[in-house]
């Protein structure tokens, strides 16, 4: 059967939002192939596939085991590779997916199209994937079978498609992983991740001092946004590397990206090319960031940002 396996992602028993995008991509391909979508959910016991039928899953496979609560690369890969004979496997290109997708592809001996931004069926599977940090885009025909596709978060709009979504338990073999995740350290205060957030507010060297990022945290708070940073301020130790946006940081595709005191170096722009709306605040009217921004304000961020925060709070409350 030309069925498509969609590997979904949960954390702490909660399905991640990106899973609906994975399912949507899988649904498109299954429709082209005349097959079903089987959603695989790996985690601790008690997980549930409720609602996955709404996003196009014909069947939900639950691989539940206490040892699978946190991501265990080897065990997750073994579960995924033993789920069945699927010609196509779809995964989100998150931190987990970027690690898992090549493992599954290698185990299946299949092709890998990584971090794709479009998936469609046209006499075969066709994907697009940005390369050279988004400076060029490949359109590729996936000729290898089986194949694994990892899909960039926020690139595909989730669509509802009512299917049965019947749940089946999948047997999980006991196994000793080759490498074992012994701990997942949580940050002191849980922060929204830039790669997942639908709004991102990033700051650069224009903020002058690390303490001034408080201004951006206020703005992010008002917008429900994640805080991001340029490499310059990450290298200076002002912000953690997890927040870096760009070629050697994270690629983000939020609905709204606000760049504050960031010049817009080519390596930074590489990370925001697929953002839907970009706003730039910079005192230099010639800063390259204005070339990619949909809306710009030329001015001193120390005046503009507090005002913007205040106005957004009004909008949100009103």
């Amino acid at each position, binding site marked *: 059967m030309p069925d498509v396996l969609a590997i979904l992602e949960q954390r702490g028993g909660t399905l991640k939002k990106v899973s609906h995008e994975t399912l949507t991509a899988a649904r498109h391909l299954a429709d082209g192939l005349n097959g079903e979508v089987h959603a695989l959910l790996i985690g601790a016991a008690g997980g549930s596939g409720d609602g996955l039928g709404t996003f196009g899953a014909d069947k939900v496979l639950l691989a539940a085991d206490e040892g699978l609560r946190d991501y265990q690369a080897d065990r997750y890969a073994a579960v995924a590779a033993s789920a069945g004979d699927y010609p196509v496997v779809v995964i989100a290109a998150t931190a987990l997916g970027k*690690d898992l997708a090549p493992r599954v592809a290698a185990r299946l001996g299949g092709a890998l199209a990584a971090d794709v931004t479009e998936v469609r069926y046209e006499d075969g599977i066709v994907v697009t994937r940005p390369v050279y940090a988004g400076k060029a*885009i*490949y359109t590729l025909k996936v000729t290898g079978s089986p194949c694994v596709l990892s899909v960039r978060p926020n690139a595909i709009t989730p669509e509802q498609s009512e299917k049965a979504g019947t749940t089946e338990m999948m047997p999980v073999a006991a196994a000793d992983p080759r490498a074992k*995740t012994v701990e997942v350290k949580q940050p002191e205060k849980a922060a929204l991740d830039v790669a997942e957030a639908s709004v991102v507010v990033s700051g650069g060297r224009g903020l002058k001092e690390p303490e001034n990022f408080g201004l951006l945290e206020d703005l992010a708070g008002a917008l429900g946004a994640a805080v991001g940073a340029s490499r310059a301020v990450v290298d200076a130790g002002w912000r953690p590397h997890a927040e870096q946006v760009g070629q050697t940081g994270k690629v983000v595709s939020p609905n709204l990206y606000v760049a504050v005191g960031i010049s817009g170096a080519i390596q930074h722009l590489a990370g925001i090319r697929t953002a839907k709306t970009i706003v730039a605040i910079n005192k230099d009217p010639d800063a390259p960031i204005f070339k990619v921004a949909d809306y710009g304000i030329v001015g001193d961020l120390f005046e503009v940002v507090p005002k913007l925060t205040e106005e957004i709070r009004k909008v949100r409350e009103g």
Partner: protein
Amino acid sequence: MKLAVCVKRVPDSEARIKIGADGSAIDGSGVKFVLNPYDEYAVEEALKLKEAAGAGEVVVISVGPDAAQETIRTALAMGADRGVLLRSETLPLDPLPVARALAAEVKDGSFDLVLFGKMAIDDSSHAVGTMVAELLELPCVSAVAHLSVADGSGTAEREVEGGVEVVEFALPAVVTADKGLNEPRYPALRGIMMAKKKQLEVKDAGLEAGGLEVVSLSHPPERKAGRIVGEGAEAVPALIEALKNEAKVL
């Protein structure tokens, strides 16, 4: 301690990318190529581990065209001991064939650790290192920002969304390097001179074609020109208006 580092020759991150005449690959003429930045972290880590062990060898391996010898020489100039080029004028976009060639090369090398960058900045597959580990059935931690190795085992930390995973493994193993792992050294003049004399073996890679066929390579659609809504704090209401009613993101 015996270490292997797999490195790729890639266009510099500043390079302007031109599309070649046949519309299926880039035009590399006039482009500056460099050692993939993430692979610099992998080379540096290997050198540090060898130095800490007091003895050993660091072998640098690349799959690529003849010109990738320069890339290998860069790593040799940093301090690696010898290089191997698995020659292939073109590289498939599907990472599995390259992973298979590298796996075959390191398989019998009795390496304690095989290091990679977490991704090549040209194709950004984020895959080759992890695939090599799977093919060789070795423990593997990808995108490592902190590594400690002692007495035949290792602990690595990798950043994930909203946290840090701490992973333990036994050697031999595969690690792929993220930014933050270390500060790569610059090759000193002496290193550059010495690198010229180091052994660099060249053989054919014999790559399979892989399972991805190029339909086209194009430039991304230009972002449509934006506008400056105004100057200073007075421009904020105009910005809010645009975000609310034009972009509809508020």
